[in-house]
């Protein structure tokens, strides 16, 4: 799965040069995820997609994400992108399940 590019662009476009603001984080995470999903659906492949996004303010705390899947290794796959700026981290994961 090579949608690393797609995801990175979507994140950059949606939250680019902004500083973490609690009141806007809802809208940002929604827009990141929706843009990712719309780019993926434009690829026109026979896949179901699950996109998750975690936005965390930088404050010295640690964060760990893990995922495990029960699927068909030959047809399904996942991809995770880590993005950061001076005030926040954003982790986007995409899971693609073949129909």
């Amino acid at each position, binding site marked *: 799965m090579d949608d690393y590019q797609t995801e990175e662009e979507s994140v950059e476009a949606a939250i680019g040069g902004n500083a*973490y603001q*609690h009141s806007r*984080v*809802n809208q*940002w*995470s*929604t827009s990141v*995820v*929706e843009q*990712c*999903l719309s780019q*993926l*659906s434009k690829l026109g492949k026979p896949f*179901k*997609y*699950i*996109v*998750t*996004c*975690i*936005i*965390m*303010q*930088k*404050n*010295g*705390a*640690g*964060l*760990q*994400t*893990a*995922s*495990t*899947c*029960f*699927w*068909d290794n030959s047809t*399904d796959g*996942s991809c995770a992108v880590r993005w950061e700026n001076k005030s926040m981290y954003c982790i986007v*994961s995409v*899971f693609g*399940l073949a*129909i």
Partner: protein
Amino acid sequence: MEASDTYLIRPNHQHKFKPAVVKECIREVVRERLSGLRYDPEEVPELSRSLADCIKDKVKNSGFDRYKLVVQVVIGEQRGQGVKMSSRCLWDADTDSYAEDVFMNDSLFCAVAVFGSYYY
């Protein structure tokens, strides 16, 4: 010779992915493993991986065959920072669903999301 349609392309009501049942599974596993634990950056990678495997096995045993599962576990330290986790899916809303739960104690928080997608 008689042919009958026995290959299901849609789950019948009993076999649908039930978010409430799965949420209960998640809750039990997480509360049992994380109550009273402190955030330790050395152990957390192993802990989150094993938690995800445990939850996946529990959900599998709850009888959702024909479902592909994706389990995502996020464990973070509590230091007063803001966090937001969101997800969107492009799937068949009739057959697929998800369940999620969040657990918090004084030193860490743990968010788990389980997505189930029917395999036609």
